[in-house]
């Protein structure tokens, strides 16, 4: 299926690869984004400010004082023809993130269990059993939308969002799961807490998670949570060490 090219006025050219949320689509988006970023870094995309990948498209943000949609279309045409398997492999990583489930750390865990007809222990096991793919970053700096949550754990968002969700809250809504990188309003169901900082603007890689990364959650005790939290805070543990080599 040929990509559709759409405009956000004179600000961005959107390359839309299809519709829906799926791992094959994520792979195609990631491949295209990698090709465009490589070209951008080489200096081959004059006037382009940045590329923004999402579930089924890559938006090419440009400066209308330095280029035009027409010039960009000509420039990217050969790049759109690069087959996915010839694209530079995105350096995606696999993470193992500790989570303290339930109690004060996960105030909605019991409600999720009740709604899905499972025990709390079963909900934790099924949430932690999956290997999630990071689909897209958005909503907040460093907020990674991950999927796919097991069908039996899928609930619509809370009918009443919270005005304050604690930073580090592990949450689910629909087929997605995420960790709130900072305190924020939020309508997802909070089932646990993760001590790992997901966004630090002064780091060379400000967001820890990137699209196409894989994430597994590891249930930990309160004691282990505190140990990891302390190790991260003191610098003894670098968050990057939680990625598999």
């Amino acid at each position: 299926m040929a990509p559709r090219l759409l405009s956000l006025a004179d600000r961005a050219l959107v390359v839309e690869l299809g519709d829906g949320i799926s791992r094959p689509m994520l792979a195609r988006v990631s491949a295209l984004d990698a090709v465009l970023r490589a070209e951008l870094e080489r200096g081959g995309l004059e006037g382009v400010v940045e590329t923004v990948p999402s579930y089924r498209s890559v938006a090419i943000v440009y400066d209308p004082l330095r280029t035009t949609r027409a010039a960009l279309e000509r420039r990217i045409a050969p790049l759109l023809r690069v087959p996915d398997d010839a694209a530079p492999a995105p350096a995606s990583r696999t993470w193992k993130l500790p989570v303290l489930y339930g109690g004060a750390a996960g105030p909605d865990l019991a409600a999720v269990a009740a709604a899905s007809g499972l025990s709390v222990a079963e909900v934790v096991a099924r949430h932690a059993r999956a290997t999630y793919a990071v689909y897209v970053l958005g909503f907040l700096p460093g907020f990674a939308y991950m999927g796919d949550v097991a069908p039996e754990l899928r609930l619509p968002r809370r009918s009443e969002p919270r005005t304050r969700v604690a930073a580090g809250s592990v949450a689910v809504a629909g087929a997605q799961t995420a960790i709130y990188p900072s305190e924020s309003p939020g309508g997802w169901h909070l089932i646990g807490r993760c001590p790992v900082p997901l966004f630090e603007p002064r780091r060379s890689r400000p967001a820890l998670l990137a699209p196409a990364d894989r994430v597994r959650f590891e249930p930990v005790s309160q004691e282990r949570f505190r140990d990891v939290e302390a190790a991260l805070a003191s610098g003894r543990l670098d968050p990057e060490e939680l990625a598999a080599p």
Partner: protein
Amino acid sequence: MTDRARLEILSPGVLATVQDLGRRGARRFGVPTSGALEPAWLRIANALAGEREDGPAVEFFLAEIALRAVDGEVRLGIAGDVAAQVERAGEREALGSWRSATLRRGDVLRVGPPRPARVGYVAIRGLVVEEVLGSASTCVRGAFGGMEGRPLRRGDVLEARPGPHGAERALPEPPRRSAEPIRAVPGPQDDHFAPGALERLFGSAYAVTATSDRMGTRLDGPPLAHLGAASAEIVSDAIVPGAIQVPGNGLPIVLLADCQTIGGYPKIATVASADLPRLAVLAPGAKVRFARASVEEAEALAREREAEVRALLGAIRPI
């Protein structure tokens, strides 16, 4: 830092933040561009202050802002629909907008309230603000940038490198205000709307509501019908300032500098970058009309607008 001039915020008004021309290259991390809602006025304020155009300045909304020089001499630049006055040793000197001002220790500058435009700028020559992710703009959602990632508060102190400051400067006359409708390019999801919706958007007057902020301007007026219930949402994709999102109730929201980086509402049209600042500075109650444009026309408007701004910057004179 004993050789820094210092400026204390006596009153920040309704909302005041440190902004520059925005943070680029970080939208992929979920970081908004932020930056001035009216970049041309920030650039003019900076140039009036003798500062580089793209440097950080204070953007303030709706009410008067008051600043006091605590230490050293501070050169400021004022832009927006504002009156200004300097209080010095019990005396008041009235100044207009679109000019510089110099504060000596103890002097107080009061600027505003901005009217009719809801936004004004005070630039400070030599303002020292840490750059985070390449910009001094305030990212409130991420709590970083500008003044500790938050709006300015009473008692905050801004630091500036000291003078000498040279002659005061001014624009010979205020910038001419365009009366043109706001140009917008249909799409990317104009195909999610019922027949007649685009014509309604381009043929109606909308009013800015009071819930408008730096993330978006919410409009009230003739609702825009989606093609069907399923068309009222999309798989979230990239949004940019200027995108006109339409949720289920049919009322358009024009996204602004602090908007999120992805969104799940269909976008019926996107405001041309040249015209977005004109819409962004409209106060609650103001009316908006849109006019249809093509991408090529929007790109040409951007170049025209930049030429106008360059001409304004070139018109700044010593007084």
